[in-house]
């Protein structure tokens, strides 16, 4: 940084991503509150700690190998080329190894680790989506392994394929997913469904005749605040998916400098426009959710989130009214699918995560293929966004990199007896010993106070 303008650009970009990371932290706070609010009193602490501890296990593994996967796998490997083992521009593979000097405080680089952190927060979100679906009967140690699988491996592979500017899905399929309808939400929803199929429902969820019971939410206020915090963090997520200052003219080979914000694919958008789309898609989701769920707070809030997720794939280019309508259209689809899958396959998704993230995400990808049909998917490759490519992309996200790995890993854990808690513990509650200890303390203090 030898002049004020380049220093300002670099430090602004560094600070920009730093702010997004702090904002996205609220997503995790929101998920924790939401899950605890949905869980029953006898499972509160376990539910909280299960979600909290995904933070360190995903963080360290994303440092060990997750970030390396992102930069190493854009070709598949084996689909359009091999592993990317040498640096080819910023952050490429060898630079993302955990022992590389650039993966630390380094006076020659101000971006690497704050960009790593932004991606890491996406990883937490992917794992946290799964966390909510499986509460009150999964072993925390099993969930930690599943969290690493989705947070530091499978979502990272799909990001390398469908988000990296040179990912094979962009080059071959014309895949476009600006704010991660598929890259995070569909893949995490699919992964969660794969786990739920093996894990089974909570005791009491289904009656002998096959009909289902609602379990909770026990604390609607925590659910409410949790979802508001997730919305808030989602702002940071949207900003984190952008590059704030980019010389599109120069870098596209035009020879004339043209500075703009871009999406993750380095194609132009504006922070201003996506802010409107975020709000309009939130509103479309809330409006539809309120009607579809007949005013149920749990599903109305969740529908707001589903609305954003459904519009996210194309929210870099949609008109705000288009965002709103797409969001509203997604809600009845995901809502009906949730109950159809629940009753047909006896799937107990405690927080509706598969529906809100998975089904809405898939819906968003498919719609994006039609809405943005013909737009260039990249400034660097001759390929356009198209419905077939987006439908194949949705199958890859939800099915190939989501459902299948979740189902396989859950099967392995289950066959080792390490997936589900014992029935007696589920009935008594995961917090029973902590509650007993707290009660004993309470009695002792009360006795002294008399």
């Amino acid at each position: 940084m030898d002049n004020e303008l380049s220093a300002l650009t670099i430090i602004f970009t560094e600070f920009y991503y730093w702010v997004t990371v702090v904002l996205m932290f609220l997503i995790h706070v929101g998920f924790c509150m939401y899950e605890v609010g949905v869980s029953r009193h006898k499972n509160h602490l376990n539910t909280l700690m299960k979600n909290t501890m995904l933070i360190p296990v995903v963080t360290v593994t994303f440092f060990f190998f997750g970030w390396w996967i992102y930069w190493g796998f854009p070709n598949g490997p084996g689909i359009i080329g091999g592993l990317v083992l040498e640096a080819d521009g910023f952050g490429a593979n060898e630079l993302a190894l955990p022992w590389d000097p650039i993966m630390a405080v380094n006076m020659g680089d101000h971006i690497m680790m704050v960009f790593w952190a932004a991606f890491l927060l996406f990883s937490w979100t992917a794992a946290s989506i799964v966390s909510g679906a499986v509460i009150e009967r999964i072993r925390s140690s099993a969930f930690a392994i599943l969290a690493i699988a989705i947070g530091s491996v499978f979502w990272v592979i799909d990001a390398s394929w469908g988000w990296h500017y040179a990912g094979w899905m962009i080059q071959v399929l014309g895949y476009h997913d600006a704010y991660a309808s598929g890259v995070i939400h569909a893949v995490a929803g699919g992964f969660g469904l794969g786990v739920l199929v093996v894990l089974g429902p909570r005791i009491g969820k289904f009656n002998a005749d096959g009909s289902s019971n609602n379990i909770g939410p026990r604390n609607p206020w925590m659910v409410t605040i949790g979802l508001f915090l997730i919305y808030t963090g989602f702002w940071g997520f949207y900003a984190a998916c952008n590059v704030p200052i980019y010389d599109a003219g120069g870098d596209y080979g035009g020879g004339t400098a043209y500075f703009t914000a871009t999406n993750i694919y380095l194609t132009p958008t504006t922070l201003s426009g996506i802010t409107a789309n975020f709000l309009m898609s939130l509103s479309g989701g809330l409006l539809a959710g309120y009607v579809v769920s007949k005013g149920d707070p749990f599903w109305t809030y969740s529908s707001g989130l589903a609305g954003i997720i459904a519009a996210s794939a194309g929210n870099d280019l949609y008109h705000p009214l288009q965002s709103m309508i797409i969001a509203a259209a997604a809600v009845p689809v995901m809502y009906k699918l949730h109950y159809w899958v629940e009753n047909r396959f006896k799937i107990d998704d405690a927080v509706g995560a598969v529906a809100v993230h998975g089904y809405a995400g898939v819906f968003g990808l498919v719609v994006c293929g039609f809405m943005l049909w013909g737009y260039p998917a990249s400034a660097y490759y001759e390929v356009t966004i198209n419905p077939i490519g987006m439908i194949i992309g949705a199958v890859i996200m939800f099915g190939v990199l989501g459902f299948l790995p979740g189902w396989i890993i859950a099967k392995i854990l289950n066959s080792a007896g390490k997936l589900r808690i014992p029935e007696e513990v589920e009935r008594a509650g995961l917090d029973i010993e902590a509650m007993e200890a707290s009660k004993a303390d309470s009695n002792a203090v009360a006795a002294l106070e008399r």
Partner: protein
Amino acid sequence: MATIETWATEKLSEYTSIYPFVGTEWLWLIVAVVFWLWWHVKTSAKESDDYDRVRSRGLSSSSHESQRADW
């Protein structure tokens, strides 16, 4: 061990890594990976012990009702 011995302006542009013990990253990585794997083994074993203890007590689904602390 200090990687940087002066913040003199003429040297700043030459600096890259400024963390201590540059060149020992592999060693720190090995320790970190071992700690991470140990954590999984340790917490999984403790979890199994906790479940075995609760199972052996024959508690019911309403046992927790009498255990709410009056704080």
